[in-house]
Every structure is written in structure tokens, then in C-alpha cells.
């Protein structure tokens, strides 16, 4: 089909729409009264909720570190300390995301807005991946120095084995929870379609925008 036919076809569609399209004014009024929610706001809410949970949780971890230090328990300090560090990185990431969400203006150019939204979604996903890395640290927090001294091979060996096993699982998950591995069964276990689809779509949009940048 050539351009002229295509335009004529599109124009005939426009005419039909012009004649018959109806606007539900009642619903538009509902929107102007703020009775319906907006999309950008819905991006912000889960982040704020995550911060509401993450901040007291991290403070609790810091409290454990303090108690561990007072009690002379180096493994408690080390284990909970590292988990608190990962959590702090996640909190900083989420705060930065809220800042990015506030920068998004739907009135800006499509490539700019879509790039911002896509980067935000992919970055949120990467923060979730980072959270997986705290898994082996949970096996360190409970090690007692006194028991380790009295039974270095059996107690130490079992704990080392658990630590290595959890480290391997964390590394395996970190590698597989990757945007490039979207068909992996691990994804299907961790993410339902509703959660995963936007991330996949965002990474595809980012690829498209790169094509137009070149």
C-alpha cells in the first residue's frame, strides 16, 4: 500500500471517529475533582512503603551490631554489620528513585521520559538483586566464638559449609535474576507476570531509545 492510500485510509478512520466519538463528561469531571489516582503517584507509593519497612529494620540491625560489640561477639558485629550496610545501600537507592520519580514530567519528550522510567524500573530490579546478597551473612550472625574455640573442626566446619552453601545460592540467584535471562524458571518462581512484564518492557524500550540516539 502506498503512502497516499495509507493517508486516505487513516483519514477515513479519522472522519468516522470525528462523527461518532463520545466523551463521558461525568468521568472527566471525576478526574478533575481528584477522585481517580494518577500513574506517577503509583510509582512512588511502593518505594515509600519499602522505605517505611527498611529504615526501622536497618536501625534494628544497627542496634544488634551495637549489642554484639558490647558483648564482644565479633560474628554478630560482622554479620549484622554487613547486612546493615547492604540495607543502607538499598535505602539510598530507594531515596534516589523517589528523587528520580519527582523529576519525571509526562509533558517532556517521549524518548526522555521513557528513558527515565525504564532506567528507574531496571534500577529498582537491580536493587532487589542486591538484596539477595545478604543471604549468606545470616549464617554468620549466629556463630558463637566460645563454641567455635571449643569445637573448631566440627562446629566451625558445619558453619563454614552452611556459609559456603548459602553464598553459592546467593551468587546463583544474583546471576540468574538478570534482565537478560527473562525466560529463566527462577524468574517465574520469584516474579509473577504483573511484576516482571514492566521490567522486561522497560529494558526493551531502553534498547529502542538507544537505536534512536545513534
Amino acid at each position, binding site marked *: 500500500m502506498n503512502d497516499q492510500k495509507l493517508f486516505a485510509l487513516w483519514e477515513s478512520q479519522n472522519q468516522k471517529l470525528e462523527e461518532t466519538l463520545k*466523551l463521558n463528561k461525568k468521568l472527566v469531571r471525576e478526574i478533575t475533582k481528584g477522585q481517580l489516582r494518577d500513574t506517577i503517584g503509583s510509582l512512588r507509593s511502593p518505594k515509600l512503603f519499602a522505605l517505611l519497612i527498611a529504615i526501622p529494620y536497618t536501625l534494628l540491625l544497627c542496634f544488634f551490631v551495637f549489642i554484639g560489640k558490647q558483648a564482644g561477639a565479633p560474628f554478630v558485629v560482622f554479620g549484622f554489620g554487613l547486612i546493615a550496610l547492604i540495607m543502607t545501600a538499598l535505602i539510598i537507592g530507594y531515596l534516589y528513585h523517589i528523587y528520580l520519580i519527582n523529576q519525571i*514530567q509526562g509533558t517532556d519528550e*517521549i524518548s526522555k521520559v521513557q528513558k527515565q522510567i525504564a532506567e528507574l524500573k531496571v534500577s529498582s530490579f537491580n536493587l532487589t538483586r542486591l538484596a539477595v546478597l545478604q543471604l549468606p551473612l545470616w549464617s554468620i550472625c549466629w556463630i558463637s566464638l566460645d563454641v567455635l574455640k571449643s569445637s573448631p573442626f566440627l562446629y566451625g566446619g558445619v558453619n563454614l559449609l552452611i556459609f559456603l552453601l548459602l553464598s553459592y545460592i546467593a551468587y546463583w540467584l544474583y546471576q540468574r535474576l538478570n534482565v537478560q535471562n527473562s525466560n529463566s524458571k527462577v524468574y517465574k518462581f520469584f516474579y509473577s507476570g504483573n511484576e516482571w512484564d514492566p521490567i522486561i518492557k522497560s529494558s526493551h*524500550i531502553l534498547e529502542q531509545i538507544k537505536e534512536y540516539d545513534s
Partner: protein
Amino acid sequence: MKNKEKIFLELVDKHKGIIYKISNSYCADSEDRKDVIQEIIIQLWSSYDSYDPKFKISTWIYRISLNTAISFYRKNKLRKAKTSPLSSTIVSSKEAEKELCEDPNIAKLQEFILELREIEKALILLYLDGISQKEIAEIVGISQTNAGTKMYKKNTA
């Protein structure tokens, strides 16, 4: 406030065709179409005060509508219940839908557009609506040359 609402209503009414066509091109599912139209109107209303008169009103509407449609994701039932208290759609035309479905050429064209990637869809919609290359570049945020080249490639494909 009432005057502002009235002007906004008139604006949406005047440009409802753009909103309808964009939602049709980005959503194959009729329920999703209702949601995307609703989100477009919400975004238009929330950005209404920050409209920059240096751009044409149609540029502003295209930008918001396309940005909303591109970043629209199928919602879960819970959110759907929160966002759509009313089951009817904002912009609709049963007659047009019926006629469009009955015309094989238009149906074929719609099918073709639905299969395109997100940014390509935006470009082809703007092109078919007769928007100039300069304005397409302004709406999409790519160079005018890039917009022209991409349209040429799409036409010859």
C-alpha cells in the same frame, strides 16, 4: 476552578480523537484501553497547570498521551478496582468500533500498528496524523533527520 474544568473538558472533547487512536494502537484489550484512556486524562489534568505555551496544544497532548500509553502496564485486579470506580469508558464509540472492525483495510492497518515496537508506533501514528517532521522530532525527542530517516525506513519496509 469551574472555568478551568470547563476549558479542560472542551480541550479533551476537541482532542478526544488523538487519545482514542493512541489507546487503540497501544492496547489490543478493550479493558486495558479503558484504563489507558483514564490514565491519559488523569495525566493531562495533573499537567494542565504546567502547560508551556511555547508548544502547540496538540504537541502537549501527543506527548502526554504517548508517554502514558507507552509506560502503561496491565494492572492487577486490586489496582484496577482502585483506579476504575466506574465501569464505563471515558472516550468511546460503538459505531466507530463496529465500522472499523468491518473495514478489512483499517483492521489490517490497526493490526500492523499493534505489532510495531513502542517508539515505532508513536512515530507511525504521528506520521499518519499528518504531523510535520519538525513536530514529530519535538514530540518524540529525536533529531529531525533521525525522525525522517526512521519514517523512510518504516515506509519502505
